[in-house]
């Protein structure tokens, strides 16, 4: 469904040609598709209506930049406006001047508060803090056990309290404990609740008043639909949110709810939850989420990310090597490591748009273990073998298999892949040399070539 939408948008963009300034036709035709895209992404319809109206008046008469088609210029205005709405800079977690800083997580049932609490603890630990976790969820069966298990997994302490304590007492106990044992952040995991459940909302008031949290983060599921505005607004009115965490971004929901929530609360997104593992919590970058909501993928951030890691010089060298057929197993391993440093393969693939050449890529099965195995095999080779794979005879292969805990078949398979990759790189390098002269403007397109695959 989304593919169709993107395709359609692409077609509209292509058809709008010429002219130095944006005309009503350009703007209206493009905005009609944008409106559909935003609604499909679950942006609240009132937000969409007001937003497209505002963008329309802003875009009309604007100069079209040389390098863009008029339709693209409109998308660009839309994109900028969306980034502006979501906050143009990355929001940080605020810490109290006098520790411990209390961070309270609130939200609907099943939005991912407990998992996010664990991830936040892991993230804080990584940043050199000493977080203490406490669950004040006395309602959901086994909720507190869940937080205890997660805390154990991330190596953070959890304040257990006793089974009969009220949420406020549990929170206060944790606060005292944090002061006594020099924990500088207390993460308070609250029970999920509906914004219309008055009794439970009153409970939240009490917890907030007793603990005076520095941050009250609304945990919202990226799959939320039109109702996101209502729940976020009620929570915000009640508690005064300081920001929100958007979870389950590792799925394929477009996350339009982020825009809706932002619109009614005016508060920034602080983190994204992007996976089942406890390190799968990322600081939020507005421009990336905007690309995703618009359904154009996060290709820009992929390039950024890749460029940050791959040393340009190294990239140039690699290209040369590829062209001259000197791409060794050592280079193969380096590339592999660079890719892995970008995060899990799944999260990288998730950033690609679901259009064009990447259409089916995100359906590819990714086996992280396979990468580990490949690295182990190459690690078990001697430098001479890595530089020249042709000397790998049967007995060398047997030794490598033993050394890496794999089988000779697996070693053979890797070598086959390597030879293929080498061939492909030669082809790419030759192709690129031919193309660069012709396509000066294709900056984004060329950038992709640098992503090691």
């Amino acid at each position, binding site marked *: 469904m989304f593919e169709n939408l993107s395709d359609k948008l692409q077609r509209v963009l292509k058809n709008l040609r010429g002219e130095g300034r944006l005309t009503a036709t350009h703007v209206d035709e493009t905005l009609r598709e944008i409106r559909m895209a935003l609604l499909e992404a679950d942006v609240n319809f009132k937000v969409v209506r007001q937003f497209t109206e505002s963008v329309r008046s802003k875009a009309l008469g604007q100069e079209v930049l040389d390098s863009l088609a008029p339709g693209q210029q409109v998308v660009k205005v839309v994109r900028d406006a969306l980034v502006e709405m979501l906050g143009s800079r990355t929001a940080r977690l605020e810490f109290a001047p006098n520790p411990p800083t209390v961070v309270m997580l609130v939200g609907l049932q*099943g939005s991912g508060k407990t998992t996010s609490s664990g991830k936040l603890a892991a993230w804080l630990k990584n940043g050199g803090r000493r977080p203490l976790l406490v669950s004040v969820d006395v309602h959901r069966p086994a909720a507190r056990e869940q937080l205890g298990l997660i805390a154990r997994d991330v190596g953070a302490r959890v304040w257990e309290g006793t089974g009969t304590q009220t949420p406020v007492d549990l929170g206060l106990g944790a606060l005292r404990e944090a002061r006594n044992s020099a924990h500088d952040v207390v993460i308070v995991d609250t029970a999920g609740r509906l914004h219309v459940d008055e009794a439970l909302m009153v409970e939240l008031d009490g917890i907030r008043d007793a603990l005076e949290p520095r941050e009250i983060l609304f945990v919202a599921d990226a799959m939320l639909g039109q109702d996101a505005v209502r729940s976020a607004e009620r929570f915000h009115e009640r508690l005064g949110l300081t920001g929100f965490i958007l979870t*389950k971004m590792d799925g394929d929901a477009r996350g339009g709810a982020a825009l809706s929530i932002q619109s*009614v609360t005016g508060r920034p997104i602080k983190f994204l939850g992007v996976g089942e593992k406890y390190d799968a919590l990322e600081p939020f970058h507005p421009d990336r989420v905007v690309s995703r909501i618009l359904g154009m993928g996060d290709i*820009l951030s992929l390039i950024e990310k890749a460029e940050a890691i791959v040393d340009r010089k190294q990239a140039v060298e690699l290209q040369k090597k590829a062209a001259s057929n000197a791409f060794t197993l050592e280079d193969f391993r380096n590339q592999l490591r660079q890719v892995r440093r970008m995060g899990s393969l799944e999260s990288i693939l*998730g950033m690609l748009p679901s259009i064009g050449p990447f259409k089916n890529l*995100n359906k590819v099965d990714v086996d992280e273990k396979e990468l580990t195995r490949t690295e182990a095999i190459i690690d078990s080779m001697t430098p001479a073998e890595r530089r020249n794979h042709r000397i790998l005879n049967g007995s060398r292969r047997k030794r490598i298999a033993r050394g890496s805990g794999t089988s000779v078949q697996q070693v053979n398979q890797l070598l086959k892949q390597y030879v293929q990759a080498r061939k492909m790189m030669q082809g790419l390098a030759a192709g690129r040399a031919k193309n660069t002269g012709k396509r000066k403007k294709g900056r984004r397109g060329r950038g992709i070539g640098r992503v090691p695959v």
Partner: protein
Amino acid sequence: MELITLFGTPGPRDPTIRDKVRNAVSRTRDDLAARLRDVVANRPEIDSDLLDDLEAVMIGADIGVRTTHEILDAIRERVARDGLKDPARLRQALRAELRKALDVEAPPLAGAEPGEPFVVFVVGVNGVGKTTTIGKLAHRFRRSGHTVMLGAADTFRAAAIEQLEIWADRTGVPVVKQRPGADPSAVVFDTLRSAAARGVDYVIVDTAGRLHTKHNLMAELEKMTRIAGRQVDGAPHEVLLVLDATTGQNGLIQAREFARTAGLTGVVLTKLDGTAKGGIVTAVVRELGIPIRFVGTGETIEDLVEFSAEAFVDSLFAA
């Protein structure tokens, strides 16, 4: 970001879009549905404003822009063909159309081979309320005089087994479990064997929440259904997808993927006690042709009712 400044108009940004949108959206409780009622009551003729309002109500209920347009187009055609002029009749026509879309026959939850358990799998993405639904479902089966056994095949999420056990205690039904991290298919195997040995009527299997985009987890689910089929003829007899009413358009994609790997036979719509309408099920039912079995309306064990298209359509247009 570089690209923005590269293309953007120089100088300070105009803050108005943000403010404007915010003003327009706050006070979301202003009652669109009530306004629609007024519109319908007071306007003598069907006009584009009325159709726009209907569209807003439907999209606002998460029915989705495509399904909404398809349904409204059908209505418009009917209006033109029948010379329909009265707004009240239009509203009736729309409700009838929606009811028709949602009314799929739901065969009874029975029909296992004599002496074998009727096996129900409960599947869905994370956090939709699978375990809670199982508790309520077990209670429902028990209340109608049947014996029930639960299978704790969510061996992944921390404390999932404990959560299921608490529900089992409340309903007084046995749970078959293994260690956390155990192979869920093995849990299915154990559960069905034990159920067959004890002559249990219903087996409900709790599965780990999984995003439909995680191919390895979806493959695991496929394996679990295969193992069940090997153990008991025709099992799983029922595969229920739990959908959260707050979910937007992604719900359809979830349903599609789960249908493909696990062969869905029905939907349970949870969290309908909030303000979300759960309209995405309209698209799910239309596309997959499977019935909505139950609706979750609260946190207590009794809060699971059979789905009624009539009541559901009513709630779409209610305040």
